[in-house]
C-alpha cells in the first residue's frame, strides 16, 4: 500500500471500519512508513485524549421524572388541565422516594404486626408511584365540577370530589389508577407539602376506623353508603384522621 492510499483510510482503520483485506496491508505499511506511522499515533493520542478528558453527561434524575410526568399527561385522556411542569416538591419527593422504590424492588414490602390485604398493598404502591412523578393527576383542577365529570365514562363510580381548601386540604385533581386490574378513580388532595391520594371503590364492608402505618405512609379506610374510601398519605396520622372526618362531613351533609 502506498502512502496516498493509506492516508484516507487512517480514520476508518482507527474506528475499526476497515475490511480485513485492507487492514493487514495498512498495518504493515504503518510499521514501516516514517510518515504514516506517526500520523496514526497522533490520531490514537487524540482518540485517547477525547475519551479521557471529555465530560460524561448524564440525564438528571429530575429530568427523568419530568419526562415520565409529561408522557403521562400526553397519554392521559385530557380535559383542559393546567399543571405545567412537575413542581419542585415533586422532584424533591422523587429524589427521596427513588431510594425507597429501588430498595423495595418497586413493590411495597408489607411487614408488621397486622396482616395487610392486597388492596392496601396496591394502594400504597400506587401512592408511591404517584409521588415518584410518573402520575399524579390526569385532570388537575381544584374545581369539583371539573374533576367529578371527568371520571364519568371512565369508571362506573362517581367519586364525590369535594374541595376542602378552606379546611386546609385543597383538592388538586384526580386520576385513574389500576387496582386489581380495574380502573379506580383517585382524588388528589394536598396537606401543605404532602399529597393525599383518596381511592374510591365499591364499599368493602371492612371499615376499620383506624390508621395503618407502613414505611412512614399512613392509610385509612372507611365505607360510606355504597362507596369505600382508601386515603393514603405521607402526612401524619392525626392529619389523615382529620381529613377523613372533614371529607365525611362534607360528603354526607
Amino acid at each position, binding site marked *: 500500500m502506498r502512502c496516498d492510499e493509506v492516508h484516507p483510510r487512517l480514520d476508518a482503520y482507527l474506528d475499526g471500519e476497515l475490511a480485513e483485506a485492507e487492514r493487514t496491508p495498512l498495518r504493515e505499511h504503518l510499521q514501516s512508513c516514517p510518515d504514516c506511522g506517526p500520523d496514526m499515533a497522533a490520531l490514537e493520542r487524540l482518540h485517547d485524549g477525547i475519551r479521557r478528558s471529555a465530560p460524561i*453527561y448524564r440525564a438528571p434524575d429530575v429530568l427523568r421524572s419530568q419526562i415520565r410526568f409529561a408522557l403521562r399527561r400526553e397519554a*392521559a*385522556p385530557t380535559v383542559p388541565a393546567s399543571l405545567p411542569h412537575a413542581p419542585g416538591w415533586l422532584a424533591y419527593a422523587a429524589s427521596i422516594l427513588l431510594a425507597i422504590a429501588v430498595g423495595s424492588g418497586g413493590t411495597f414490602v408489607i411487614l408488621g404486626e397486622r396482616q395487610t390485604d392486597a388492596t392496601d398493598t396496591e394502594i400504597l404502591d400506587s401512592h408511591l408511584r404517584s409521588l415518584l412523578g410518573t402520575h399524579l393527576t390526569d385532570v388537575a383542577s381544584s374545581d369539583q365540577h371539573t374533576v367529578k365529570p371527568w371520571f364519568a365514562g371512565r369508571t362506573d363510580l362517581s367519586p364525590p370530589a369535594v374541595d376542602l381548601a378552606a379546611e386546609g386540604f385543597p383538592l388538586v385533581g384526580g386520576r385513574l389508577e389500576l387496582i386489581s386490574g380495574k380502573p379506580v378513580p383517585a382524588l388528589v388532595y394536598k396537606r401543605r407539602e404532602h399529597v393525599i391520594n383518596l381511592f374510591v371503590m365499591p364499599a368493602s364492608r371492612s371499615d376499620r376506623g383506624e390508621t395503618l402505618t407502613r414505611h412512614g405512609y399512613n392509610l385509612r379506610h372507611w365505607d360510606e353508603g355504597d362507596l369505600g374510601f382508601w386515603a393514603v398519605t405521607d402526612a401524619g396520622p392525626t392529619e389523615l384522621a382529620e381529613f377523613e372526618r372533614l371529607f365525611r362531613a362534607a360528603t354526607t351533609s
Partner: protein
Amino acid sequence: MAWIAERRRQSRFEAVVLPHLDAGYALARWLTRNDADAADVVQEACLRAFRYFDSYRDGDAKSWILKIVRRTCYDWLEHNRPAEVVPLELDGDPEGSVHSPPVGTVDADALLQSRSDLRRLDQLIERLPAQLREAIVLRELHELDYRQIAEVTGVPIGTVMSRLHRARAALRRAWDGKECGDAMR
C-alpha cells in the same frame, strides 16, 4: 378500555426509550452546550418520539432516539441560535478540509487562544461546527459505528467519514499545536 391501552403504550415506550436517556441527553448537551437547554430539548424529543412511537419498529432503539433528539436539537438551534446551524460546505469531499473555504461558524481566533489555556479537548470539541461536533461525539463518546452515525445524522456514510476526518484534523491541529489549518476557519 382505550385508557388502559394508552398506559400500556406508555410503559412500552418507557422501556424502549428511557434506557437511552443518558445518551440522548449527552448528545443534546454537546449540541446545545448548556444543561438547561439540553434538558428542554430532551424532554421535547421524548414527547415527539412518543407521538411517533407507532412508527418505531423493534430494532436499534438507541439510534432511533438519538436521531429524534438530534432533529429536535437542530430545530431548537435554528429557532434560538440560527448562526450555529449554517450548512457545512464541501460536505462529502473527504479531502475538502485541505482547500476548503471557511466553514460553519467556528471561531478560529477563539480556538487559537485556547491553545494557550490548557488546550482542553472538550472545549475544542465544543468549538467545532455542529455537524463536525456531532460526528466526533457520536463516534468517540457514544461509540456508534459509521452506519449508525449515518442513520442518526441522515447523511451518507461517505459524508460521515469526511466529517470525522475534518473534525479530527481540526482538533489535532489545535491540540497538538501544529499549524492552524483550514477546517476550523
